[in-house]
């Protein structure tokens, strides 16, 4: 076998396989890091998935793994596994921009909790992944730097906002990646790129060091090529963190143990509203075929209704911008990041810096949020949206009295063309299947379930709060059985 072919095989390994080969000494962590870095050099000119490539971080971590192995020390669970992290997640000493020009030169003095945990788990950080500015967008076209292209078809978007993370994993630049999901930003790009993406339960994973968009909805999670790899990453990042008061101390099981082929008696609810909302007929058919496949393997499915679904998007576009307008108030040109050249008094400095530093979509959401929270409009918009959130949550609570998981499409369409959704509202409507799950704080996973027009379709499974195990078990079983014919 030629050296190039061998390296190509290394980058195609799952995290489980790569870790096992490194542990057995069949390959070194250094070889894994070099193979990933070469792959990045080859693929980046075509897809632009990364904002920063981090060879020093990858190679120094690899040297440490190889030293430990040589010394006969036990290896951590992600030893030698190439990793990309969304650029909205802080990495000490490595530029972290959240995809925004206003943070173009920001070098965090600390690691996000998830970054620190994955470093401790032995993963090799190969790069920081592109995303929509401050995670606001669904196509990665709103990056302040450049758009990422879908590795499956470079005329199309990879989805967003964690589009760089999904594209990097899809293109074998990394075996695993982290994204963040506020209204679908892990699951939708995973669906568009044909990979696996999990948004854990709100509170399952620490948000410390995640550059905040909408704090009551944001959640960090894995993007990988296999369900078992998602479980492995979740094991490493889940669990209480004293630095995030919303990160709960609910016990963390071994999620890899949930990866077993067994859906006997699993009750699947199929909410009818998710097959109406402008969902492409081929996408709907593909998802229904996936549910049938699970039923052939012993699950039982029935239709159900989540009546408040149609209002979730509207409520989201009050709550998320309201929280964003508050979170993004910190960017003032004083403490970090970009500052305008025009020093026109204190308020002028802040106003100019923000006008020049933020992109159009971010400004729009700040404006909507500020308006919704302003005097006289609070009850009509913000309070009403929070009441609707209660109704959404009740819909799901009622459904989970009858079902163990819910199954629906991750997105109404497959990946669309670059520039196709130039109307901001049209793009937002594409998040209609994922937003309600964030509003209810529930765990959701997207797994590839087939093709429509030659492009990947995502099956979304949703479970009760803190029941990622059932999600992983169902997803693993489906993955093992193969896609429906």
């Amino acid at each position, binding site marked *: 076998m030629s050296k190039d072919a061998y390296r190509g095989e290394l980058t195609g390994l799952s995290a489980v396989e790569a870790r096992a080969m490194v542990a057995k000494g069949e390959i070194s962590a250094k070889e894994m890091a070099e193979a990933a870095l070469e792959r990045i050099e080859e693929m980046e000119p075509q897809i632009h998935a990364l904002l920063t490539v981090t060879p020093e971080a990858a190679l120094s971590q690899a040297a440490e793994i190889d030293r430990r192995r040589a010394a006969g020390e036990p290896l951590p669970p992600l030893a030698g596994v190439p990793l990309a992290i969304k650029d909205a997640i802080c990495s000490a000493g490595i530029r972290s921009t959240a995809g925004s020009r206003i943070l173009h*030169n920001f070098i965090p003095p600390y690691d996000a909790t998830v970054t620190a945990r994955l470093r401790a788990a032995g993963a090799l950080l190969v790069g920081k992944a592109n995303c929509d500015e401050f995670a606001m967008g669904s196509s990665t076209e709103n990056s302040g730097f450049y758009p990422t292209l879908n590795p499956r078809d470079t005329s199309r978007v990879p989805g967003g906002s964690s589009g760089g993370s999904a594209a990097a994993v899809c293109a074998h630049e990394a075996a695993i990646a982290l994204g963040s999901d506020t209204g679908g930003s892990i699951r939708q790009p995973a669906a568009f790129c044909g990979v696996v993406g999990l948004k854990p339960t709100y509170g399952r994973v620490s948000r410390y060091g995640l550059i905040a968009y909408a704090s*009551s909805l944001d959640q960090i999670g894995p993007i990988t090529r296999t369900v078992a790899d998602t479980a492995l990453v979740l094991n490493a990042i889940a669990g209480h963190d004293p630095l995030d008061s919303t990160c709960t101390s609910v016990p963390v099981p071994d999620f890899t143990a949930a990866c077993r082929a067994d859906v006997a008696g699993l009750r699947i609810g199929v909410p009818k509203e998710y097959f109406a909302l402008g969902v492409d007929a081929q996408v709907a058919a593909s998802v229904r075929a996936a549910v049938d496949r699970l039923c052939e393997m012993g699950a039982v499915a029935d239709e159900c209704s989540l009546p408040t679904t149609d209002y979730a998007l509207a409520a989201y576009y009050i709550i998320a911008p309201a929280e964003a307008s508050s979170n993004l108030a910190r960017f003032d040109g004083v403490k970090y990041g970009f500052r305008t050249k025009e020093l026109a008094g204190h308020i002028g400095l802040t106003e100019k810096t923000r*006008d020049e530093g933020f992109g159009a979509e971010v400004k729009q959401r700040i*404006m*909507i949020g500020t308006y919704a929270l302003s005097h006289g409009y609070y009850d009509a918009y913000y309070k009403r949206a929070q009441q609707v959130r209660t109704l959404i949550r009740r819909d799901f609570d009622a459904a989970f009295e009858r079902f163990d998981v819910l199954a629906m499409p991750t997105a109404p369409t497959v990946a669309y063309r670059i520039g196709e959704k130039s109307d901001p*509202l049209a793009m937002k409507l594409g998040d209609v299947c994922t937003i309600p799950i964030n509003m209810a704080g529930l765990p959701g996973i997207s797994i590839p379930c087939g093709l429509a027009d030659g492009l990947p379709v995502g099956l979304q499974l949703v479970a009760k709060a803190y029941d990622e195990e059932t999600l992983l078990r169902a997803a693993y079983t489906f993955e093992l059985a193969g896609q429906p014919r």
Partner: protein
Amino acid sequence: MSLSREDVKKVALLARLELTDDEIDAQAANINNLLAHIESLQSLDVEGIEPTSHSMPVVNVLREDAARPSLSREETLANAPLARDGCFVVPRIVEGD
């Protein structure tokens, strides 16, 4: 509900965004477009429904009020666009001597 140019300017001041004339028009159109969509919420009966501020019932989490190490002054100022004598530099706020 629909926002005029003047409304947009007022909100922009609250949000500390100095928008150009073209941006004001574009923002007004985009915001009004989204508000029209959001209008659907007004048709839903929410009488007596408790608002949910957090999807999970998280209550106050307290810890001991104990001192612990934090970032050094140098680390804190390292990302500042302008710093001098261990301080952030901003334009003059108070007029006079």
